[in-house]
């Protein structure tokens, strides 16, 4: 660099250099913004549309409000939990909420936001120091928003209550929230009209932030124990494939968010899935056998939990738009390495799909939007079950409607039969669930399961293949029981685990409970007049 600063040479070089600059700069200057047709464009979105900085900002902000306005799903005064991972999309969502709730916004949003961040470092085996640093970074972003926030550790999923697996529209919700949700909203709007709206929201906020500060301090006083972290790491170590690990992480994360939303009284959860992410999710979920719940998994709103509805307001933005917006308008985001960081393209189905979609996208810029438009047109064949339907019909882990009640001559049944046949032939290591390396002792409450659980590995394997004489009780081996409560895709995830009894206690306990209920139902079935009666009495 210093070499050419002497005498004539530098002058000469400078001249030559300026010539080049002009030569190259001309083509890019000629590209004008498609909207205002005046300013120089700074980015291309949707294949050909070039936007300038100002028009892009306007477009971006408008899109967020339009998305919420169009769907009319978030009511004024409603408590909305923003799930912020620290990544670009959710951080951008936070900035849009801030923008939308700010005083000078013309079409002001009027809900009451709170934030949840889940520290997942325990699953990917990060050191405590790294995790603390990452959480501190995220916390500083969250604190600057002035919204109440909850920092939750993935370890806490191990101590969740079983009630988190219940679908909210059943008994629990009625007891907790009293009158119907809509009536409550109407009532709110009426009281809100009497009060000055801004004043009302402000009160609510100050109240909330004082609450959240307490909570944060509580959280700090009893942080996660090393035992919890170890248990979590054992759980993820027992999962053989990255595909299943990511799926399990997704399930646990969802449960934690749901639990926080319920205990803190949030009725909506906003997730920051971008349309690029949803396009990838759509394709990978199909490959994961989750096709039956695609509409819920990728749609704007997801009401599978009943009392808490998941919304995805960022689903109109591509990850490119988000990255540009964050960079141009200084939206802070925190990069936290996850399970798939530095992973190969073929490390997991999710990863492979991502690289597939991204590669297609570079050659065919309409790829993501085409897939995404497809997801918009999807609907579930049978609408979500009504409140009286028994919870048996939902998957224990992902809460989607069970897709395993397929008819006899379906591909699903054929798969099951061939699986059974190959299991009967011998204890094939790949297929039986109780094989090698079940780490740690089974959780305490499993003593009720009888000797089958606490027995050695060989015996458990015998259970898996239903050999007579192992299980003396009428109970079926737990692996099979758990399976019968899961949807096809969650079964596949469980199948990739070396041991099922290492799953968090709340899942196992709920499985127990459901099993007992169905057992009882079977026993008393001849005394029952109608299905509905039974549901009411039990």
């Amino acid at each position, binding site marked *: 660099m210093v*070499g*050419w600063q002497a005498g004539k*040479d530098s002058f000469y070089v400078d001249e030559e250099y300026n010539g080049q600059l002009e030569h190259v700069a001309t083509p890019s200057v000629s590209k004008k913004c498609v909207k205002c047709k005046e300013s120089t464009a700074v*980015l291309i979105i949707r294949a050909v549309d070039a936007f300038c900085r100002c028009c892009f900002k306007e477009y971006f902000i408008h899109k967020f409000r339009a998305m919420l306005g169009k769907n009319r799903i978030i009511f004024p005064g409603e408590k909305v939990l923003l799930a912020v991972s620290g990544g*670009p999309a959710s951080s951008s969502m936070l900035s849009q909420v801030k923008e939308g709730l700010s005083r000078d916004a013309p079409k002001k949003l009027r809900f009451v936001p709170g934030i949840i961040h889940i520290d997942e470092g325990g699953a990917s085996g990060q050191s405590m120091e790294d995790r603390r640093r990452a959480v501190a970074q995220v916390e500083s972003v969250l604190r600057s928003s002035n919204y109440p926030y909850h920092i939750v550790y993935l370890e806490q999923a191990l101590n969740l209550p079983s009630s988190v697996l219940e679908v909210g529209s059943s008994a629990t919700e009625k007891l907790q929230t009293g009158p119907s949700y809509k009536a409550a909203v109407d009532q709110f709007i009426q009281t809100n009209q009497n009060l000055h709206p801004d004043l009302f929201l402000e009160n609510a906020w100050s109240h909330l932030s004082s609450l959240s500060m307490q909570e944060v301090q509580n959280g700090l006083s009893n942080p996660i124990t090393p035992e919890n972290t170890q248990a979590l790491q054992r759980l993820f170590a027992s999962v053989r494939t990255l595909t299943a690990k990511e799926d399990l992480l997704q399930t646990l994360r969802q449960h934690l968010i749901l639990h926080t939303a319920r205990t803190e009284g949030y009725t909506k959860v906003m997730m920051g899935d971008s349309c690029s992410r949803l396009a990838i999710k759509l394709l990978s979920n199909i490959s994961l056998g989750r096709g039956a719940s695609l509409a819920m998994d990728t749609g704007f709103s997801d009401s599978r939990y009943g009392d808490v509805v998941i919304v995805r307001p960022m689903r109109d933005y591509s990850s490119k738009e988000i*990255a540009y917006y964050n960079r141009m308008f200084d939206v802070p985001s925190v990069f936290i390495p*996850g399970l*798939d960081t*530095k992973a190969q393209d073929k490390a997991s189905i999710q990863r492979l799909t*991502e690289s597939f979609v991204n590669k297609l996208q570079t050659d065919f810029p309409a790829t993501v939007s085409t897939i995404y438009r497809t997801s918009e047109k999807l609907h579930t064949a049978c609408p979500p079950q009504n409140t009286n339907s028994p919870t048996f019909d939902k998957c224990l882990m992902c809460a989607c409607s069970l897709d395993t009640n397929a008819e006899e001559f379906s591909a699903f049944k054929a798969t099951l039969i061939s699986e059974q046949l190959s299991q009967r032939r011998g204890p094939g290591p790949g297929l039986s669930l109780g094989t090698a390396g079940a780490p740690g002792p089974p959780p305490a409450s499993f003593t009720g399961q009888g000797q089958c659980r606490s027995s050695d590995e060989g015996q458990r394997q015998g259970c898996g293949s239903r050999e007579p004489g192992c299980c003396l009780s009428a109970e079926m081996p737990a692996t099979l029981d758990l399976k019968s409560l899961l949807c096809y895709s969650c079964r596949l995830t469980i199948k990739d685990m070396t041991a099922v009894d290492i799953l968090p206690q709340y899942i196992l306990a709920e499985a127990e409970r459901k099993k007992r209920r169905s057992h009882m139902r079977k026993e008393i079935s001849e005394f029952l007049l109608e299905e509905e009666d039974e549901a009411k009495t039990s």
Partner: protein
Amino acid sequence: MTASLPVLVRGSDSDVSNKMAAPIALHLEFGGGAELLFDGVKEHHVILPDQSEPWDMKQLLVWIRANLLKERPELFVQGDTVRPGILVLINDADWELMGELRYELQDQDNVVFISTLHGG
């Protein structure tokens, strides 16, 4: 830093200097997890040595791969371009507006690479 020698050559032979590009200083930035492949360092001030042709983005990528990348080059460069899913900004503008790989780099240019991939 290696730039001083070739410049002397340029001074002594003006015919060659017509074709030669000056060493250029660039500000490179990696974000969205891409920095992990560069020892976690986000910002790099680099000086590209002068060479017979002007530096373009394609050559910059080759240079980054040889000089800056610390591990797993396939996670950053694929073929002669960046891995799909990594965005490139030249002076805060989309590189698609600047001719992508054909863009001729100028002294003091600011080039940003942002990974939009899950997990960086």
